[in-house]
């Protein structure tokens, strides 16, 4: 079964942040379906729609790997199932 999660990353901007996060996601056999990224006043903000097959990785593994990467590059990275965003803002 395929799941979609939304990855948000926030922190001070520096070179290669998007690449590092995307690499970690690829290493977990997950796919980046969509990405948007901005830098404003030195603050880096990125939103990724990431899908994966549950037979290849789990949300917990993805979370753990991204938390490690986030720590290394100084980003606060959140991984949440897409339904919370759909539910919160729409009926």
């Amino acid at each position, binding site marked *: 079964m395929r799941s979609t999660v*939304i990855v948000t990353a926030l922190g001070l901007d520096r070179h290669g942040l998007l690449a590092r996060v995307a690499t970690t996601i690829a290493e977990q056999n997950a796919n980046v379906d969509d990405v948007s990224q901005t830098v404003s006043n030195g603050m880096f903000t990125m939103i990724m729609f990431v899908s994966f097959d549950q037979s290849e990785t789990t949300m917990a593994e993805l979370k753990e790997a991204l938390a490690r990467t986030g720590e290394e590059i100084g980003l606060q990275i*959140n991984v949440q199932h897409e339904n*919370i965003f*759909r539910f*919160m*803002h729409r009926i």
Partner: protein
Amino acid sequence: MVFITADEILETVHMIRSENLDVRAVTMGISLDDCAERDPRRTAERVRAKIVRRAGRLVAVADELQEKYGVPIVNKRVAVTPIAEVAGNDDPEAYITIARAMDAAADDVGIDFIGGFSALVQKGFTRSDAALIESIPEAIGGTRRVCSSVNVASTRAGINMDAVVRMADVVLATAKQTAADGSIGCAKIVVFCNAPEDNPFMAGAMHGSGEPEVSINVAISGPGVVRNVVAAHPEASLIELADLIKRTTFKITRVGELVAREASEMLDAQMGIIDLSLAPTPAVGDSIAEILQSMGLEHPGAPGTTAALAMLNDAVKKGGTMATSSTGGLSGAFIPVSEDAAMARAAAEGALSIEKLEAMTAVCSLGLDMIVVPGDTPRNALAGVMADVMAIGMINGKTTGARLIPAYGKKAGDWVSLGGLFGEGPVMALSTSRNDAFVARGGRIPAPLQGLTN
């Protein structure tokens, strides 16, 4: 596919990471109708076994949903059929045995509180009700997780003043029984008017007779989120502010709806209700009082507080009812004192009195909640305060409750720490005018005209 904007995604993340948005409680209601046995020890065994069987996965499921959605689910709890209806026994010892079984079951399934050590006596006592009430001081004082509630009044029945007086005695006896711990036992006893059968909040949670076999009731949270939206709009008129609060509580409630739907499916339980109450904790930024301050009041208790609270409570409900068709429980802003640091501060500084809290009770939910009063408060004074709170509920057709803590050995102005989510607060002074002749009349205050709605 529903389109989600980047702003919406970041708003959700901000609400969770920076504004304390959480789901306050996932409470499983369990019917114990099939646990009655002639031997109370056997009843107790069956009660424990059924709670463990049905709620064994409650904590694991809540933790799984917390991971999946990134929203903290703070409390996992269980509410059961009012025990006076289950045990059918007129020996108080039988109820103490069952309370211990409930406590052990709560420990087995890893929850902090279990509610339903309860009786409904608004019109009178059965022998079971009387025995349960008599057992409360020892049952609550001798257990860690069991919570008790007694419904002594309703809009349809009036106020059972005999029950009010008995509960005043019970609260004083429990204060003494748990004196070594700041009379903490009283924080686990609520006296209700119009008690809801599906309330997910402790200490008043119970699984009423109209409820299904097993249900999941969810309590939303979010005082911090509402406070921030109010504080961010200092120029907004009150009507604009009401709209902002509605929009915010819509979002908060949708999270509760999502969790309730999934948790009930995963636990093979019927989805019950979403309780729209804004419930504070002692943490800074998680306070109803701070919302009132952001609305422009120096302290809760300042002139205008009741009006501000009425508006807040109404806007929360309007936003919430758009978000779910399963509203229930208490669904109104809570105004506890010890559990809300800014409220406790206002009381300590003399800005907030018990009389003002009573007025605030008329426009929100739960009444006089988590208020520490002097340990030498006379029984009749305590009964009088409880009766006042019940009258507000009875006449207005709403739920009110009294959770008063006559802290043993403490006097007005002392500071009492109750620990954890119970918080801390000042001992608040009660009026010393005598009411003995009124209380001594006993009997029942008849149901008001408001109860005749057919």
